């Protein structure tokens, strides 16, 4: 049994991990940057170590300082959360070399899925093809043009080291491809330190459906159902739900097929611990492999609500060497999650860091709030703008939506702007309510609706 775990993250996920540890009677160590000294995760942990100045590169990405903090506090394991060093195989190696268990996939599994280009090849091997596109990295403009010609426009140019919806651009013809190819490579170099890109056919009217997997160290891999994350704004997820209305209403047989495909991919990669296999589904029910997220994800709570499985605790138990014991997963009810960000939906979602004056989170039956913020807390400008997640659970989709609408109406955050009005508009939208939407949904909602419409619905 682990006695102490260091949480190598911040914000709401650090709070989430600390909660899971407390319930398992495991002591916790928080690490924090100077600007996070008053953050909730620092208050909740048993011990806290300052690891540097505000910028992530000087704190949450400092492998040396984090491992040093782990050594001086004598922890058994490190949980990396999501983002930051969560999918950094080198970090996982350093931990293991220092006799500290890394709570996540083995570095072998991480290397097998090292970047998106490598993952595409692995998926093909597992008989789960990605959308048509380049075989691996596209080395130059000529290859880019040839690939686009082969698969047909429009195409997506994606950074192989990208993540979280960043590092991708679209091209509709040769002229824009030439421009976007170089732009993507430059941005990728700056953002991810890797300028490699691949090209993929853009699937119109697509749906983003992902499967949660868990694998223990003995090779047993299971899936815990799907999450529909098609409601995205500029490739950033906004609302997620399970089960997917698309699979429930239109393509019932896909769940079994896609679940098996997800497990097959995980097996080829010899995957361990928690992960998510992402797919793109088109309007005809054809599905394609997108990528594997080798970490716990932001939207993991909706899977927890419908399965009753604590995914973060499972991560810890698997890392301790336990075999997967959750057996036959039962799926009950429907869960929806809204990501609440400190952004102004009426000003092109401009980030609004600042001091939260009043904070009243919603409650009542079927409502869960995963957040680190509080009244008087100043949201720093150095990190992402997510304030927290609001999750609603109901016995069916209708009840979950009603609860989510009620909860969004009660959620009071003043002092900064939030995306709550935007999410209220989404929940009121007739297409969303019917469960008929694609990844173009948000664009259509924002493009068509005038400001007053959103304000009205809010």
């Amino acid at each position: 049994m682990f006695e102490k775990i260091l949480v190598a993250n911040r914000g709401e996920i650090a709070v989430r991990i600390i909660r899971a540890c407390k319930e398992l009677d495991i002591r916790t160590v928080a690490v924090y940057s100077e600007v996070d000294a008053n953050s909730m995760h620092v208050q909740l942990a048993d011990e806290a170590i300052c690891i540097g100045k505000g910028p992530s590169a000087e704190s949450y990405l400092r492998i040396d300082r984090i491992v040093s903090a782990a050594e001086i506090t004598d922890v058994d394991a490190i949980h990396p959360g999501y983002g930051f060093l969560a999918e950094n195989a080198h970090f996982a190696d350093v931990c293991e070399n220092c006799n500290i268990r890394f709570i996540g996939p083995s570095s072998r599994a991480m290397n097998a899925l090292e970047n998106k280009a490598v993952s595409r090849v692995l998926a093909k091997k597992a008989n789960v093809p990605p959308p048509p596109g380049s075989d691996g990295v596209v080395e130059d403009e000529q290859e880019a043009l040839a690939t686009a010609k082969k698969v047909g426009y429009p195409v997506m140019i994606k950074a192989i080291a990208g993540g979280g919806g960043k590092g991708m651009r679209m091209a509709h013809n040769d002229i824009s491809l030439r421009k976007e190819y170089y732009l993507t490579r430059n941005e990728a170099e700056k953002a991810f330190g890797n300028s490699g890109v691949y090209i993929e056919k853009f699937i119109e009217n697509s749906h983003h459906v992902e499967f949660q997997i868990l694998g223990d160290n003995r090779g047993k891999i299971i899936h815990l159902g799907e999450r529909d994350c098609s409601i995205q704004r500029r490739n950033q997820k906004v609302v997620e739900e399970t089960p997917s209305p698309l699979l429930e209403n239109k393509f019932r047989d896909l769940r079994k097929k896609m679940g098996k495909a997800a497990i097959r991919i995980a097996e080829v990669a010899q995957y361990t611990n928690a992960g998510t296999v992402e797919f793109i589904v088109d309007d005809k029910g054809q599905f394609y492999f997108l990528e594997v997220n080798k970490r716990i994800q932001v939207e993991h709570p909706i899977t927890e609500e419908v399965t009753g499985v604590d995914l973060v605790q499972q991560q810890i138990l698997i890392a301790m060497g336990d075999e997967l014991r959750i057996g036959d997963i039962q799926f009950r009810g429907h869960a929806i999650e809204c990501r609440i960000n400190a952004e102004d939906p009426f000003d092109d979602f401009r980030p609004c860091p600042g001091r939260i004056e009043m904070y009243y989170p919603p409650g009542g039956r079927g409502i869960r709030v995963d957040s680190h913020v509080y009244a008087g807390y100043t949201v720093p400008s150095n990190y992402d703008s997510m304030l927290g997640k609001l999750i609603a659970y109901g016995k069916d989709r209708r009840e979950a939506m009603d609860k989510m609408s009620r909860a969004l109406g009660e959620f009071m955050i003043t002092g900064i702007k939030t995306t709550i009005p935007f999410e209220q508009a989404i929940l009121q939208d007739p297409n969303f309510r019917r469960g008929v939407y694609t990844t173009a949904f948000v664009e259509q909602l924002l493009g068509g609706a005038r400001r007053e419409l959103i304000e009205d619905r809010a």
Partner: protein
Amino acid sequence: MDLKDIKAIIDLMKKNSITEFEMEKEGFKIRLKRGVNGTLTVTPTEDGQAMAYPIQSSAPVAALMPASLQASPPVVSSEIEITSPMVGTFYRAPSPESAPYVDVGADLNSETVVCIIEAMKVMNEIKSEVKGVISQVLAENGKPVEFGQPLFKVRPA
């Protein structure tokens, strides 16, 4: 009674979930009370002021104690602090047998090595980076230090 004893008592209180401790000896009396939310109230009878400190932080308890208990000179506002540039274990001397690199009263220039911070089995010599005279040693030998933690107080030259 010195700081080590007080820290040992606090640790014992925490370990055994004791909330109040009072002791009197040789003209010195101290009362320690642990709050429900993890704060520690220290009431020395000398200045009769109760001060509450959160005990969540991993900074050595020495830094949380009121100045009167430390038997150290009063704080001079023009003094500057040498803070830790890394996370690790603080050592005052290159080896257990050697004399400390610097002591109170030592003259510093920017290149003077003032201590070692050991991180991941690597001994890092920490330079002063300021010119002046050491007026106080703030960190404890052999104890962990975090980024930004004050190590020494220096009267600038």
